[in-house]
């Protein structure tokens, strides 16, 4: 029983319709995004199901997950705060921003807050160099950019995420 295929029947049909019928594997990345919405990362079962839908080997599917940075095969924070520290952002204080933010949260880049809410990641250029310091927040719902940030504004964003999770009655 392919749970992904059952749950997202219509959405998968819409994705498949974008590509020629004989090139089902073109849908692998859209399907990985779809599956990642469920848990925030990709389980072995999800990769197996996507392999069946796209008629690929499961190792090939896993190699796609491994290659692209926005796919995750391990659970992390519910929200991944991805701070750009590439050259243009670093010229406008991004390294110091990340360091001070991490000090405030008591975690290192790559780590997750003890409540599992937030993981801080250091990432490469996000195409917002003129509005640094900046970061994106990746969550099961999608991606949001936050620009012209300070440690104070970032902590407010985090407080907002925490409040909305508590509003949902979540564990965070």
């Amino acid at each position, binding site marked *: 029983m392919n749970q992904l295929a059952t749950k997202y029947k219509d959405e998968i049909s819409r994705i498949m319709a974008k590509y020629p019928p004989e*090139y089902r594997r073109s849908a692998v990345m859209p399907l990985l995004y779809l599956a990642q919405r469920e848990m925030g990362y990709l389980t072995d079962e999800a990769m197996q199901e996507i392999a069946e839908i796209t008629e690929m080997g499961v190792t090939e599917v896993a190699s796609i997950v491994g290659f692209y940075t926005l796919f995750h095969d391990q659970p992390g924070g519910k929200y991944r705060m991805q701070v750009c520290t590439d050259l243009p952002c670093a*010229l406008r204080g991004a390294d110091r921003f990340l360091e001070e933010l991490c000090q405030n949260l008591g975690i290192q880049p790559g780590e997750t807050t003890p409540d599992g809410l937030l993981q801080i990641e250091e990432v490469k250029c996000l195409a917002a160099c003129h509005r640094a310091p900046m970061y994106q927040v990746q969550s099961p719902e999608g991606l949001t950019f936050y620009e012209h940030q300070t440690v104070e504004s970032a902590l407010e964003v985090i407080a907002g995420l925490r409040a909305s999770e508590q509003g949902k009655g979540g564990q965070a």
Partner: protein
Amino acid sequence: MNKYILLRHRDIPNLKDLQIYQENGGFAAFRKIVTGLTPDQVMQEVKASGLRGRGGAGFPTGVKWSFLPTNLWPHYVVANADESEPGTFKDREILEENPYQFLEGLAIASYAVQANTSYVYLRGEFDPLAAGLDRCIAAMEAAGLLGDNLFGTSYSLRLHTHLGAGAYVCGEETALLESLEGRRGLPRLRPPFPAVVGLYGKPTVINNVETLTNLPPILENGATWYRTIGTEKSPGPKVFCLSGRVKQPGNYEMPLGTTFRKLIYEYGGGILDDRPIKAIMPAGASSALIPATEAVLDTPMDYEAVAQVGSPLGSASVIILDDTVRMDWLANKTAHFFSHESCGKCTPCREGTYWMAHLTDRIAAGKAEAQDVELLHDVTSQIQGKCFCALGEFSIMAVRSGIELFRADFDARAKRVES
């Protein structure tokens, strides 16, 4: 008086609304060519305009289209919206604020090569932009601007978005095609070029977002008008992305051939804290460093003149460095970027970028010896000219030019060892 040709949303509020775009002449060019011009006439007009690819290579767009064989079908057009070069953020503004002009350009390119299905490949981080484009595409379908038998002709066109998932190398056009086909983004051996063997093995044109956004005004106003903007060899407007140590970073649309001085000091408001400018990177992290002499500041930013002062213009992602920036630190930043983004397919890039990152770590941390700066320079020589694609070739630019032009910055961090 409207002044923008590409960033027209800055003159016309709500241009991302289809009705407002059409009220301001939108889709007139597409309708005109589909109903009145042959594909060859469109190609000739774009060739005559002298439009050159805005993604970095600067190759003439009309010429690129003409490489598609007419005995192999179907043809595809893929818009490259993978914008990932550090320092580049122009396509994002176009996609967010002026999406229909881009989509009309994509439709025009599709008609010119008679593609009936075209794709927009966006970097994964542009997920919200892809959703916006999907809404635009649906609105165009509802308005009869996409679909079967357009404007009562036999021409049909459908557009689809496709999201990448975080890989700089996918901006390289053959890696992009691999990714669109559902594989890891590893570049392909060329030849054959995508014009002959591209997406799904079929003839394919890959054009940058900004390149395509130039097409509606070219087809509406003609090649002769277009050539009144910019220079003889680099015609037209360009969006320059200004970042780094300037007061007003941002996108600035100006004719090709505008000087660095005008961009940095008039539009950008000058250097932060009015400090001295040290160097310029005109093509993002892939640039060689150009020392910012008076002569360089007066250099017109077009493909030929910038190359003559030391670096390709690339996608015109102009990163400004002032006297507070240590070039050993900068080399460390770019080396880590390319090391992270190397796809691993070819050894010189995979190992070389790793070595550069490692050595620049030691230099920037003050742990290296003077001979390590030489070693770093040697490593760049072992990468140069030996890589499978441009990512590896460009990975050395800032490191190598940094050592050659700003050696003192490196030596100051390296320990002196008595021999």
